[in-house]
């Protein structure tokens, strides 16, 4: 018994691979007919091969539990998600446009604040921002760029439109899984790579290194680039270590670095102290430097902000870049794009209600059962309310939270997020997915070909975070015209 595409029914959701039961989309045809040619046993073998590869390659993520931290094997679904190249080219343009505008916005906020003076961006929103850092005012980082690495989450609605759901400008993670997913898929379906022209993703670590090297304050052939990790207990440690290895950069912890009397950053090596030029930091702003921020931080480096402000070391992403990824600022991104670039946004925002405005708040409180409520400064899917799935009591709790701190909440309609075929107990079922492409901005801007497709493995679930039962898939940008 092999896969019967006629019995695969996405139930009215937009499906990434088929347009209606039995009818695959053009770019997916080679894949669907190939899958149909496999017996159940063969599919099972491919799945087992993938699981084996994941264990062997040591791909893990860390979950915080009562019993301490546990490394779990990365949950992966072998059926790739496919996006036609033609569509992707437009998305790529849209992402470049968005990140360019966001960087202009951040640079403006920390310098002249023209956008505030011109009353396009409200003063009150800025005044209440939790991620605006006084310590960064007046700084002009290299190329005027603050968010060098951005991970924007995209979702597709019922009619097939792709929306940006959020931008992650602080320390976005997941790119190592994008790279590893491709490696695993190549092992599992090598035949398909011969019959498809799939855009490669493997260049990312070199692009990342080149971008980071371009930020060096010293004009050297080989600037010292390091990755700063909070350490092995961080849930993304696997990725920190992975990227450091792929870039050939040292993976350092705060205690490995020190700021000298010359306000330069050095790392402690067995050969003595070595000057560091660029730090790809995977530590949150507030833990970067106990002298400037949280004095209890054991993760940071005393004096680091001083060294950065003097231009003796580059930090990526720059401290304070998070001011633009708060979910209230998100609501203003279309205006931000128009203001700085005088262009219409290529990829739309999800319509967003800002609870700080009384009329919008009223609407939200009246329609709690239809909306998704998100706190402005949480990530990982924590602290959210999915209205249609919530109990009466949960909705009442959120109504209180919103009234107490309206500036901290936004609301969006529940989108009918697209599905894609996913292997569940030996057969294919539709599961909801999002997509996180990664954008690198330095002198030039690069976008990954595709990104990390995250899939909600539980039936009907919309939560794709790995910490909450999500998995991931390889994402293929497929050229159908060559």
């Amino acid at each position, binding site marked *: 018994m092999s896969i019967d595409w006629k019995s695969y029914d996405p139930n009215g959701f937009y499906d990434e691979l088929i347009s209606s039961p039995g009818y695959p989309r053009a770019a997916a045809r080679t894949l669907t007919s190939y899958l149909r040619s496999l017996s159940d046993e063969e599919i099972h073998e491919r799945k087992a091969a993938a699981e084996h590869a994941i264990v062997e390659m040591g791909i893990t993520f860390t979950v915080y539990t009562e019993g301490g931290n546990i490394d779990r094997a990365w949950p992966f679904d072998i059926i790739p998600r496919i996006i036609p190249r033609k569509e992707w080219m437009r998305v790529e343009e849209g992402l470049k446009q968005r990140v360019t505008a966001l960087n202009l916005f951040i640079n403006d906020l920390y310098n002249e604040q023209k956008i505030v003076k011109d009353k396009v961006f409200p003063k009150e929103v800025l005044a209440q921002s939790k991620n605006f850092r006084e310590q960064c005012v007046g700084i002009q980082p290299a190329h005027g760029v603050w968010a060098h690495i951005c991970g924007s989450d995209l979702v597709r609605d019922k009619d097939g439109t792709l929306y940006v759901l959020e931008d992650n400008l602080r320390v976005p993670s997941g790119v190592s899984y994008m790279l590893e997913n491709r490696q695993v898929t190549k092992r599992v379906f090598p035949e398909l790579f011969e019959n498809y022209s799939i855009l490669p993703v493997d260049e990312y670590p070199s692009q990342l290194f080149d971008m980071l090297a371009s930020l060096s304050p010293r004009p050297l052939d080989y600037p010292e680039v390091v990755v700063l990790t909070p350490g092995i207990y961080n849930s993304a440690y696997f990725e920190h270590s992975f990227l450091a*290895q792929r870039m050939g950069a040292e993976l350092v912890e705060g*205690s490995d670095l020190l700021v*000298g009397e010359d306000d330069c950053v050095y790392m*402690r*090596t*067995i050969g003595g*102290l070595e000057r560091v030029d660029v730090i790809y930091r995977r530590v949150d702003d507030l833990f970067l430097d106990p002298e400037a921020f949280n004095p209890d931080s054991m993760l940071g480096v005393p004096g680091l902000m001083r060294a950065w402000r003097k231009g003796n070391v580059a930090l990526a992403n720059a401290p304070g870049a998070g001011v633009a990824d708060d979910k209230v600022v998100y609501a203003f991104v279309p205006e931000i794009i128009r203001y700085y670039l005088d262009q219409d946004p290529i990829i739309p925002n999800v319509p967003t209600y800002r609870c700080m405005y009384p009329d919008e708040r009223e609407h939200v409180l009246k329609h709690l059962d239809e909306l998704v409520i998100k706190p402005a400064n949480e990530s990982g899917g924590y602290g959210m309310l999915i209205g249609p799935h919530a109990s009466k009591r949960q909705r009442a709790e959120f109504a209180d939270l919103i009234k107490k701190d309206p500036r901290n909440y936004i609301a969006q309609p529940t989108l009918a997020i697209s599905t894609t075929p996913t292997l569940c107990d030996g057969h294919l079922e539709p599961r909801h997915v999002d997509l996180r492409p990664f954008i690198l901005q330095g002198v030039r801007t690069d976008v990954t070909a595709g990104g990390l497709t995250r899939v909600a493995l539980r039936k009907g679930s919309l939560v794709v975070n790995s910490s909450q039962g999500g998995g991931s898939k390889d994402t293929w940008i497929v050229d159908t015209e060559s």
Partner: protein
Amino acid sequence: MLSRVAERLYWMARYIERAENTARMVMAFSHLALDMPRSVQLSWKSMVSTTGGDAAFDHHYQRDDERNCVKFLLADLDNPGSIMSSLSGARENVRTTRDLVPSEAWESVNELYLFGKANAEAGVGKRGRYAFLSEIISRCQQITGLLAGTMSHDHAYDFIRAGRNLERADMSSRLLDVAGIGLLSKDEDMQPFENLLWINILKSVSGFQMYRQHVRRRVNGALVIQFLLQDKQFPRAIAHALGEVESSLANLPRNELPLRFIAQVKRHVLDAKVETLLKPEELHQFLDQIQMEMAETHASIADNWFRLDRAA
């Protein structure tokens, strides 16, 4: 190479070696206890003393009988030198440097720790002790072999080799100390047993056969002390282990100071006149001195490579 990483690898190696040698020492002492004439009372506490654990022991235990002493050395997490503390230290250090060692090494260290955790209690009792200690020794040997055979012999490995051998030299000196306490007494009752008991000491470092091949004379106290102290070929002899430390450190950058320390202790070991060390007090005093010089060597390694500050 980062100082922190070097330090963790060095300690990982020390902890593995410490676990193995503590197992060897307890094994030797347990054999000794079985072979001793009934009239001779063996002090289990003396074994605790040679590991420098007196204060911690007295704090936690009322009676210094066999069970308590063995428990303290095998399973007690309050004793930083116990086998379980060592395994846990090794595991933590390799867990934080997983990228630098072959992945089988991490797996083996992890499994060894889990084995210890599940079986240490049983190893405290007389009946399960031999099996437990043998397993610890052979698994530690396996890890040491795995690192030697699958890891590039680069700076990272130099730190592992230095740590392992400094710990080994230190522990061999403590084993000799235990032997001295038990065997070099003037007790008349002991005479007929003495040589048999020295054989036990050699066996506990897997050195009996090598002794026979290289010394070629019947076993006696003076020759065993000389063999374990000054032999340059036997891997668990102090002189050999210190030579290994020296050659590892010689590969590292900026090594003048630590090299001076290691050369000094090695010279003192090789220059020692064994005939002057045949009384328990004299041997103990000499070994104490050597242990102190090894501790200074360690401090110099740490200052030189692990603790760089602004002044450096």
